[in-house]
């Protein structure tokens, strides 16, 4: 005997484990509409990069070969006429993003690991001395023109003296959670708050417009992200693995390299992708810190707003496209880790 076909309304699931037809229709409509909203600007970007100047300026044309004749002139300009600028920016962007990401991941996950496993108890009072002295040094150097070496040496001497003498007497111990909060809270700083002093700092050591300056800055602004995501990830790894390794004679570095990093692959992949995206797309800091040699891709995009000639929409579209491609490839490569990796970090909240 076959199961009689159930006659159910549009609003009831036709079979167990399925969605009601009405739900399905609504769901697909919404998702398709949103896909269109997401994809259409990208589609427009792509066709614009193949339009002639006239086709862009004479009003909307939608379909290549039907509305307008595709042309490679924008791409030619980018890769033939101005290939030096293009490749330099591309190269700069790759070097800077990858180095900054690698550095941020390394430094950040080491810090996150230490915070998740080792107990720290820094003295808040000592830290306040430190910050106070830092401010005094800043005032002395910046306003009263004291030589910075003299000021730094005095400050360091004074700090050790105070820390020894008074630090013992007044104690207000912080805990790991406080340090973690401190590091993560650095993300609240808008780049604009710190960029002026950073600019002056690099200027005084003649590092403006170098890779190093941008790499270091990107590393620091992304450290909080890495620490935040990796801390939760490390916390989810059972402790006894490490304790066992410890008894077997492994050092902390050994444990980190042999056990922790391999076990955190998913988290590392997701974090890496996020940080690469953030570095790759960053504009404001790059604008401050580079003038010429170290220019990155976002600056090249902005440079297509070429003043008296107006905006070069066609080449700009091409530049934006070549910026997206590597990120998409990377996202596809790391895709299977992303859901898993973000899950652990985020779900713990």
């Amino acid at each position, binding site marked *: 005997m076959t199961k009689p076909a159930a006659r159910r309304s549009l609003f009831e699931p036709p079979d167990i484990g399925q969605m009601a037809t009405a739900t399905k229709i609504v769901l697909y409509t919404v998702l398709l509409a949103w896909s269109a909203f997401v994809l259409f600007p990208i589609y427009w970007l792509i066709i614009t990069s193949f339009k002639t100047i006239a086709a862009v300026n004479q009003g909307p044309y939608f379909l290549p070969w039907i509305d307008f004749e595709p042309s490679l002139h924008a791409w030619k300009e980018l890769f033939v006429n101005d290939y030096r600028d293009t490749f330099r920016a591309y190269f700069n962007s790759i070097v800077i993003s990858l180095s900054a990401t690698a550095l941020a991941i390394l430094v950040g996950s080491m810090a996150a690991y230490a915070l998740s496993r080792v107990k720290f108890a820094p003295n808040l009072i000592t830290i306040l001395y430190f910050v106070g002295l830092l401010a005094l040094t800043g005032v002395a150097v910046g306003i009263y023109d004291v030589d910075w070496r003299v000021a730094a040496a005095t400050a360091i001497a004074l700090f050790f003296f105070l820390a020894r003498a008074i630090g013992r007497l007044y104690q207000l111990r912080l805990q790991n959670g406080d340090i973690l909060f401190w590091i993560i809270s650095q993300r609240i700083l808008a780049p604009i708050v710190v960029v002026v002093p950073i600019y002056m700092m690099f200027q005084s050591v003649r590092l403006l417009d170098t890779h190093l300056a941008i790499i270091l800055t990107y590393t620091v602004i992304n450290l909080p992200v890495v620490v935040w995501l990796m801390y939760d990830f490390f916390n989810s790894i059972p402790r*006894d693995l490490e*304790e*066992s*390794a*410890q008894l077997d004679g492994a050092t902390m570095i050994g444990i980190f390299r042999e056990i922790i990093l391999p076990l955190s692959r998913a988290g590392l992949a997701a974090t890496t992708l996020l940080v690469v995206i953030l570095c790759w797309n960053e504009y404001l800091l790059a604008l401050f810190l580079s003038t010429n040699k170290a220019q990155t891709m976002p600056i090249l995009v902005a440079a297509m707003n070429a003043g008296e000639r107006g905006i070069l929409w066609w080449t700009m579209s091409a530049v934006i496209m070549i910026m997206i491609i590597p990120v998409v490839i990377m996202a596809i490569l790391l895709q299977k880790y992303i859901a898993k990796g973000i899950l652990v970090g985020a779900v713990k909240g």
Partner: protein
Amino acid sequence: MKNKDKGTAKSISIRSMNKFFQAVHVLKDLSLEVQAGEFLVLLGPSGCGKSTALRLIAGLESISSGELFIGETNVTNVLPKYRDIAMVFQSYALYPHKTVAENIGFPLKMAKTPKADIDTAVLAAAQQVELGDYLERFPGQLSGGQRQRVALARAIIRRPSVFLMDEPLSNLDAKLRGNMRAELKYMQSKLGVTMIYVTHDQIEAMTLAHRVAVLKDGTLQQLGTPKEVYSNPANLFVAGFMGSPPMNFISGAIDNESFTTKGVKLPLPGAPKSNQVTLGFRPEDCRIVKAGSGAMDAEVYTAELTGDQVLVTLQLHGSQIVSRMPKEFEIGDTQIAGIEVDARHLYLFDSESGLRITADSTR
């Protein structure tokens, strides 16, 4: 100290060890001497501080006060990796991303042993625990017993002077547990290492240990051979903890060199007068007889056949008394039965302090 006397068993001496977690006093003034080559079992109920004690010995937690010696060396402040200790965790702590061979060889790799030596040692250790065919598998592809043996192999490959085990058998099924118990005991005597083994299962303690240390709420209750602890418990707690089913207890008073409670009067020559005592006897030391002919009468509750014996549970003044009878025994529909106790195996405790009271008759 590090390498020359590797593999020779060492004694362990714990001297007034205390451990606090913030305000919580988890281990209270623990002192223990473990001889070289001895198999010591730390036994106690859940949460009594066994794992904590083990972790202090391993150096995974810091000691709040007291001292710890391994061999002649004071290791109180020595880092775990310098203590020459191997530990098998309850969860086995196998590295999921490494193969069996890599797991077993990990301690040697950390000691920077040449690759070829590691391979031969891994093979030897794996064969010792009969894992030779599984070297290329990952821990996720092994059964519970096999994982346990990987953990064991990883511990023995180092030839450590001290072996620590934290409930290594608790994740296994009953049959495998029996096999592994025998294997562990054999392995320990063959290797001749010092072993401290943590469990809350008193059968494991009885069968494995040279000596048992019973722990309760972080305090050492009794230290002795399994036989001593079983047949000569120092207090109510130990008496009740050892043995399955546990010892029967009846509370009452001692008057005129005899134990009395409602409807019961048992002569106990030499027992000092006291108002609050607890009388204990083991299920195997009492027999069910006809009502009125034993030392006391009680209401029959249930009878369970366990295979080689019948456990009869009776109720006396609200407390339960279990008697172990031969498997031929039939209770029928008896409502009230008598209990006859073996006067040579009676235990007397002070109800308040829980301490054992010795009378001439209960020695």
